[in-house]
């Protein structure tokens, strides 16, 4: 227990969550927004801590979890997403002032779970961090109590989540039966003993279900559009970035790093699911009329692109996934921030709310086009470079050329629905021509994410150098 100190960032974040929850019970309704600021400050402070510890690599209490640059990178992404989400929540009116404390605390705890998940090396530890994320996110999704959409999205999310957790636990029990341990370190040293054990293979497949649910991989994606549409918009942004990327990081560690390919080759299954995920996500997005639903299906498709890098799993593929995760975080967060501003003015998430937006707020339309182009993968923006690295890795590996071709075709399809929003903003007129104002906090998020999207697109080498440093999992 000597090195529990390595868990300091998570402990601080959880304690800050507790403090905010308690303070929420005593603070007056007119000052409740202070709690958001407390949450922002504590997550930003922990973010700073993670940056100073970037080069650290160590094992925690025995071998339950691990600290390495790869885990630190995903913690950085998660905390950045948390800060953005809290900034977006400050002026989100559907959260009642007396519930702000609960809301902020739950967000911090979910982030805490994600940080634990990104270093997990033991299936029991992994399970608990997954549940910490799931349970907090179920409540956050259903947070607008008076809104039947929110409740319905939460219940669908909960039922799918409960089922996938149960299947994962069953998988872990089979894994335990086959190997006699739940620890990935002990397992990795004796990997050849279990090569052809059917219980072990079943167990790993069942465990894959749990991750597939979290990153909304087809066929475990049914919850995503409903939960995303029902949830409060900042929570939607959070679910589509932080929750997905944290699970992706853990999945990379387990399926592409810890378990050697000669031991159990799930790659072909994940490759097939990646192909299905991006194709189905894109095809369903073509027919959406609600912008939150459209972005939900688009985020399913984006998960498919990221899985390509995971399938390739050589150093280039891994760098690709890390880069994609960074680019996806800033792009998607920005797109949701703009959707939040537009809905705040027009009260609607339907696509016709975007008619004539260019005349009502030119700046907002321009950044929205930037985010959409980046999601579609058009140069010189972040999304293009990310797709370039991931598809390049697939081409390099020779076996997965077909995945790269399918990915490019899918990107072409996706341009249609992304540009449909741009067309509405610039070429369709609306009756209402009152200007759309952006409040300070949301404007901050939009400016930061838009700058990041541009910078990552223009100076990919600089960011790649940073990622090359982070990319090693020393399991």
């Amino acid at each position: 227990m000597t090195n529990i100190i390595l868990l300091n960032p998570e402990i601080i974040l959880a304690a800050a969550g507790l403090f905010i929850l308690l303070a929420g019970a005593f603070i007056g309704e007119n000052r409740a927004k202070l709690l958001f600021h407390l949450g922002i400050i504590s997550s930003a402070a922990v973010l700073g801590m993670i940056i100073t510890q970037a080069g650290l690599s160590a094992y925690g209490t025995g071998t339950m979890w691990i600290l390495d640059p790869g885990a630190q990178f995903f913690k950085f992404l998660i905390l950045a997403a948390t800060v953005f989400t809290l900034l977006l929540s400050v002026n989100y009116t559907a959260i009642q002032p007396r519930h702000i404390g609960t809301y902020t605390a739950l967000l911090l705890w979910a982030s805490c779970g994600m940080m634990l998940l990104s270093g997990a090396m033991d299936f029991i530890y992994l399970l608990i961090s997954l549940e910490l994320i799931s349970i907090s996110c179920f409540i956050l999704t259903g947070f607008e109590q008076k809104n039947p959409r929110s409740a319905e999205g939460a219940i669908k999310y909960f039922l799918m989540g409960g089922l996938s957790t149960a299947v994962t636990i069953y998988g872990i029990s089979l894994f335990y039966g086959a190997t006699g341990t739940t620890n990935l370190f002990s397992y990795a040293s004796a990997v050849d003993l279990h090569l052809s054990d059917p219980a072990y293979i079943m167990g790993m497949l069942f465990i894959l279900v749990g991750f597939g649910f979290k990153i909304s991989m087809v066929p475990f994606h049914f919850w995503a559009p409903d939960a995303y549409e029902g949830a409060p918009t900042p929570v939607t942004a959070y679910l589509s970035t932080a929750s997905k990327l944290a699970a992706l990081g853990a999945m990379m560690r387990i399926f592409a790093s810890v378990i050697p390919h000669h031991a159990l080759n799930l790659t072909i299954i994940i490759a097939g699911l990646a192909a299905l995920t991006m194709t189905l996500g894109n095809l369903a997005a073509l027919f959406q009329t609600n912008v939150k639903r459209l972005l939900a299906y688009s985020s399913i498709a984006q998960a498919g692109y990221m899985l390509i890098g995971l399938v390739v799993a050589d150093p280039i593929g891994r760098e690709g996934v890390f880069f994609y995760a960074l680019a996806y975080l800033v792009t998607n967060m920005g797109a949701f921030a703009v959707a939040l501003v537009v809905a705040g003015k027009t009260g609607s998430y339907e696509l016709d709310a975007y008619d004539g937006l260019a005349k009502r707020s030119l700046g907002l339309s321009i950044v929205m086009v930037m985010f959409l182009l980046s999601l579609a993968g058009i140069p010189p923006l972040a999304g293009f470079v990310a797709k370039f690295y991931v598809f390049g890795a697939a081409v390099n590996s020779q076996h997965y050329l077909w995945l790269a071709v399918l990915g490019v075709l899918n990107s072409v399809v996706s341009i249609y629905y992304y540009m449909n929003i741009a067309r509405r903003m610039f070429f369709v007129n609306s009756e209402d021509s009152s200007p759309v104002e952006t409040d300070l906090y949301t404007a901050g998020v939009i400016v930061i994410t838009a700058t990041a999207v541009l910078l990552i697109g223009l100076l990919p080498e600089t960011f790649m150098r940073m990622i090359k440093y982070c990319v090693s999992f020393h399991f």
Partner: protein
Amino acid sequence: MTLSHYLALSGVLFTIGLFGVLTRRNIIGILMSIELLLNAANINFVAFNRFLYPGQHLGQLSVIFVITLAAAEVVVGLALVMAIYKNLKSAYVEDYNILKG
């Protein structure tokens, strides 16, 4: 009683639970079926621990964690059921159809 008996029991329990989740219309029924799935995993853990790795406690320990997690999850689940029941006055999943497309 051998390990196979226990594994067969847990397999049957898992199948019943999965069948229940996919076919039940009442949301409480679905919650109960999820509990069945978790208990199937618990039987596995304990049986493997007893028959294959008798020197360890890891399997029994895991069961404690799983039971705790299941309790936490079901509390949140029932709270969500209450929330949607207040809105829609129904506990049947086919009535939850505002969100679609």
